[in-house]
């Protein structure tokens, strides 16, 4: 099997690779060019911004790479935001792991700031004030941010991994391949929701479950979802994308009538005919929900975790409303909310946190409860409203998961055990 046509660099790009812009830029350009080869790209293209996933500590190699770049004098050349780290820098006492790991995690976060990244520390950079626009090319890492950028914002990013994110930010270039190109953004497999009842479509736990189903069924094709209600909001689209990325590597989906490249089914398909159609049934969605965590009602819980991806301002408002129903009872199971520091400050300013703080809710910023050691060591059973948290927490932090709606999560935290409100699901 032969290689694709070779990558053509401009004279300026060749000079960077040969070290004329410094050793750090040369290393970054070498990685970008090798990845262009993997992607079969013919050329590199400029990006407007980058989002770094490589700042969360999963081992010495991550620190080795960042430290080498810093040592070589690396600086980002485009505006660059940071994903979650392993430590809540504002509440570092929440971290329960070894002090040596905490120190390494902090060094890694510092290394990215030293290269000129902005200290946003959120997996939901699309909740920040400046976000990329339709058709803008960016290099975003973090699977849920990638799928949101492509699908909901109509910005263009490939599924970039840790290390590539910072290399692209340093040289301001990515391979012209994958989802940067029109032909790869066309919808291929249609998920038809017309067989589902209105109650289910509007149920809060529906979106992560649908995302899980879409991820499992998409098999590398770009999904097109037909039949979501017209008022489906960004939090719900976030939940669909995050689940679909976890369960199936989905980097882009279309939702007809909702996402910017899908005003119609024909537009979402880009003029081609659909390759496959999945008629989504209520039983399939229930199956996906159960796969995420079908713990029976009454099961004792050690923790409840929401905010994966990071909680938005509107989700804080919904949490406050749900907490109002259990107020003033104390929460029996600790309730954790993960969010970005900007959203946290803004939620406080808007008065969404007063009740939560009074009831003992723990707000975690800069990091997330499913990928670092924040839950009590002895926690074995946890509930979440997040498809992504439900997917990864068993492997990452060794808990069994109950999956349910935000309201079920709050009621369960108050009861200290799983509470279900079946409603539209029965």
């Amino acid at each position: 099997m032969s290689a694709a046509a070779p990558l053509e660099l401009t004279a300026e790009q060749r000079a960077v690779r040969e070290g004329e812009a410094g050793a750090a830029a040369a290393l970054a350009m070498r990685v970008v060019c090798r990845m262009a080869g993997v992607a079969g790209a013919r050329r590199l293209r400029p990006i407007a911004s980058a989002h770094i996933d490589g700042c969360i500590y999963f081992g010495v190699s991550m620190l080795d790479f960042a430290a080498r770049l810093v040592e070589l004098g690396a600086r980002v050349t485009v505006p660059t935001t940071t994903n979650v780290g392993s430590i809540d820098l504002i509440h570092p006492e929440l971290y329960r792991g070894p002090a040596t790991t905490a120190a390494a995690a902090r060094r890694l976060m510092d290394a990215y700031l030293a290269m000129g990244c902005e200290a946003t520390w959120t997996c939901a950079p699309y909740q920040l004030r400046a976000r990329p626009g339709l058709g803008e090319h960016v290099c975003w890492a973090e699977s849920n941010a990638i799928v949101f950028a492509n699908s909901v914002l109509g910005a263009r990013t490939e599924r970039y991994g840790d290390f590539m994110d910072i290399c692209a930010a340093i040289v301001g270039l990515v391979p012209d391949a994958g989802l940067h190109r029109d032909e790869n953004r066309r919808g291929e497999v249609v998920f038809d929701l017309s067989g589902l009842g209105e109650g289910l479509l509007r149920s809060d736990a529906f979106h992560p479950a649908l995302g899980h189903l879409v991820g499992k069924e998409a098999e590398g094709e770009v999904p097109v979802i037909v039949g979501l209600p017209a008022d489906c909001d960004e939090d719900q689209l976030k939940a669909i994308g995050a689940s679909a990325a976890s369960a199936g590597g989905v980097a882009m989906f279309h939702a007809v009538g909702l996402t910017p490249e899908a005003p119609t089914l024909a537009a979402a398909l880009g003029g081609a005919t659909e390759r496959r159609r999945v008629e989504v049934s209520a039983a399939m969605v229930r199956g996906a929900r159960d796969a995420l965590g079908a713990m029976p009602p009454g099961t004792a819980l050690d923790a409840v975790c929401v905010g994966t991806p990071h909680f938005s301002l509107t989700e804080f408002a919904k949490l406050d409303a749900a907490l109002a129903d259990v107020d003033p009872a104390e929460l029996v199971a600790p309730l954790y909310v993960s969010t970005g520091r900007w959203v946290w400050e803004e939620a406080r300013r808007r008065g969404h946190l007063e009740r939560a703080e009074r009831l003992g809710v723990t707000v975690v910023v800069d990091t997330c409860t499913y990928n670092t050691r924040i839950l009590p060591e002895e926690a074995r059973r946890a509930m979440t409203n997040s498809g992504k948290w439900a997917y990864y927490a068993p492997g990452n932090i060794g808990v069994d998961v109950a999956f349910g709606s935000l309201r079920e999560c709050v009621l369960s935290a108050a009861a200290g055990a799983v509470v279900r409100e079946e409603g539209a699901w029965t």
Partner: protein
Amino acid sequence: MRLPVRPLTPGTATGAPLRLRESLSFWGGFDAETGAIIDAHHPQRGEVLTGRVLLLPAGRGSSSGSALLAEALRLGTAPAAIVLGRVDEIIALGAVVGEELYGRLCPVVSAEGDLPELGASTIATVRSDPDAGRGELELG
């Protein structure tokens, strides 16, 4: 049996083949300390990938998969080679960075379609040279 494959990262490696029935995210799905699959949803949870020629239908999920593979190369727990059903840039990137940082190779290739059945094969060799555009999977 020899199959042409698309070379993504360089190297030649031999090991016992292991064919995964489902896609895998190295991050959240693989423990770099032990080399084992830890994805609770994966049918082959518990299988150890260290030193194996891994046949993997696809990558999936997290952007941190590249970090986990680079970390496994550092620790010596990585697969000997990875044969993908379709190109996965996050996995290839892990091999590229493992090579840049530690000089350790994990050839990654793509079969560009269905992965071969292993049948009675007990040993597999991957030869991958992206610069020359040559890649091969040999099952014996």
